[in-house]
């Protein structure tokens, strides 16, 4: 096949680096996977029950394009409670099919052909391709362990050209676990203002912040009208497969995103929306329990890597550790592949999330303590052999 039917834009998108590993792991048995980007908890029962009940009652129709009003009201309420930011549930909140859709909509809603979008890396794998597919040009900005994987306002300033339209922020960060301090965000806000940028801030790991409280970017003075906040329940309430995300922003931006959403996704599945209402309304206790457990595992894993001699930055958010393996002399990919083949532990090479992630591994600690202990001991014996 010549692939003559496939559009050039799509052809030019490199395949996801995660995919290759996934295929390798599938062929093996007895693998402990630290490569998983989702909670190991099953969705809390009260949320599942709300979904079941909604099916029994026959709620299987479309909803408003924006999502059920009751859900949007709960989302709006939680933004007010958690971050003191007001969003009108009528026109400033959009419920999407996962945060991935929300990110895609946000890019398509703001990018004109050849607009540049600044993306701090390492970061979640979808931003760059989404920007390209929206006709924009991704401009990656590397972050490093020396600065705790935070992007600085100077770095952003330096990457700005007359074509720069938007800035992506994704903190707490997948894959590094880095978070931003209020002061960092305020400095960035100044640069954003001066250069008239729009900010797309993916805060899906916001609830998984282990020291201090998460700062929502739109809570920074002057930022509400020039930012789209992406959030969702996948990570906080262990409901990844139910695909509920949401975007909040000005009426203008949310309106633009809704236009695309109504012609593509139409609406998020109603069963999941019903579950989402229950999750926000009554899910805090279960969520806090899960966050506490992640925090315990986080300390265990970071300590474990450092004891093995793999320098590990202390993640303060999300559920990933991002140890450096530079001391071994192997590339991330070599390390990950050999570790998988000899010790049956799956991790994701850091450069999958951007070039500057090279020399690191993403290890998810959303896995039971017993499995983590076993994985660390296997990594230990792998290190002894190389």
């Amino acid at each position, binding site marked *: 096949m010549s692939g003559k039917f496939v559009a050039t834009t799509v052809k030019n998108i490199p395949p*996801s680096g*995660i995919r290759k*590993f*996934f295929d390798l*792991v*599938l062929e093996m048995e007895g*693998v402990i*996977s630290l*490569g*998983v*980007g*989702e*909670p*190991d*908890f*099953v969705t809390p029962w009260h949320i599942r029950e709300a979904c079941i009940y909604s099916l029994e009652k026959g709620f299987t129709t479309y909803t408003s394009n924006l999502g059920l009003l009751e859900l949007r009201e709960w989302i709006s309420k939680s933004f007010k409670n958690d971050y003191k930011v007001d969003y009108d549930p009528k026109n400033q909140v959009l419920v999407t099919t996962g945060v991935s859709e929300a990110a895609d909509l946000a890019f398509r809603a703001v990018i004109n052909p050849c607009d540049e979008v600044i993306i701090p890396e390492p970061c*979640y*794998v*979808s931003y760059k391709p989404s920007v390209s597919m929206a006709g924009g040009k991704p401009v990656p900005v590397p972050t490093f362990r020396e600065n705790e994987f935070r992007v600085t306002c100077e770095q952003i300033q330096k990457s700005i050209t007359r074509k720069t339209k938007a800035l992506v922020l994704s903190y707490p960060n*997948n894959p590094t676990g880095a978070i931003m301090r209020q002061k960092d965000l305020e400095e960035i806000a100044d640069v954003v203002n001066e250069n008239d940028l729009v900010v797309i801030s993916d805060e899906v790991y916001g609830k998984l912040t282990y020291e201090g409280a998460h700062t929502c970017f739109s809570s920074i003075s002057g930022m509400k009208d020039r930012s789209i906040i992406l959030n969702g329940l996948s990570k906080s309430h*262990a409901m990844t497969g139910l695909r509920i995300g949401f975007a909040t922003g000005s009426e203008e931006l949310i309106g633009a995103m809704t236009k695309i959403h109504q012609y593509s996704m139409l609406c998020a599945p109603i069963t999941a929306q019903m579950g989402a209402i229950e999750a926000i309304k009554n899910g805090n206790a279960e969520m806090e329990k899960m966050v*506490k457990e992640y925090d*315990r*595992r986080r*300390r*265990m894993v970071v*300590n474990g890597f450092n004891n093995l001699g793999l320098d590990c930055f202390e993640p303060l958010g999300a559920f990933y550790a991002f140890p450096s393996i530079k001391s071994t002399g192997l590339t991330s990919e070599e390390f990950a592949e050999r570790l998988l083949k000899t010790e049956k532990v*799956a991790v*994701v090479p850091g450069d999958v999330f951007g070039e500057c992630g090279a020399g690191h591994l993403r290890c998810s600690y959303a896995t039971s*303590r017993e499995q983590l202990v076993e994985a660390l001991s296997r990594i230990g014996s792998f290190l002894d052999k190389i």
Partner: protein
Amino acid sequence: MKEILEIIESNPKIPHKDIATMTGLTEAQVASKIKEMENKGIIRKYKTVIDWEKAGEEYVYAIIELKVVLRSRTGYDAIAERIAKFPEVVSVRLISGGHDLSLTVRGKSMKDVAFFVAEKIATLEQVQGTVTHFVLRTYKQDGDILFEKEHSERLAISP
């Protein structure tokens, strides 16, 4: 303190070293905090949950509801304490509703339990009536689900 309790609640065998890592305390601090909580009676005891049926031992459990008439000046506590002293009695609770006390009794057979109730409990002066419910199957006990536990069916690698 609460953090340590939450960690050991479902597994008292976690080494102090691991608890120290998880809480950010030193191993010595963890040990002394646990000792302190044991002394204070916050930690009552460490128990083993056994599936006796799997071990080849058959036990019969029954929930017994009692109606109690109080004698002058001695309250529920006195009769509850007397009942609690029988080793056959696994738990004793004061309850609201149609009955006053609820017991769980364990025996080797239904006959065993029935005789125990008839001879030892029903004959107590304050006990006016008993209702015995034999347990046919236990699905959840002490917060532990006793049928197949569910686990997340995740893909091995995801973004």
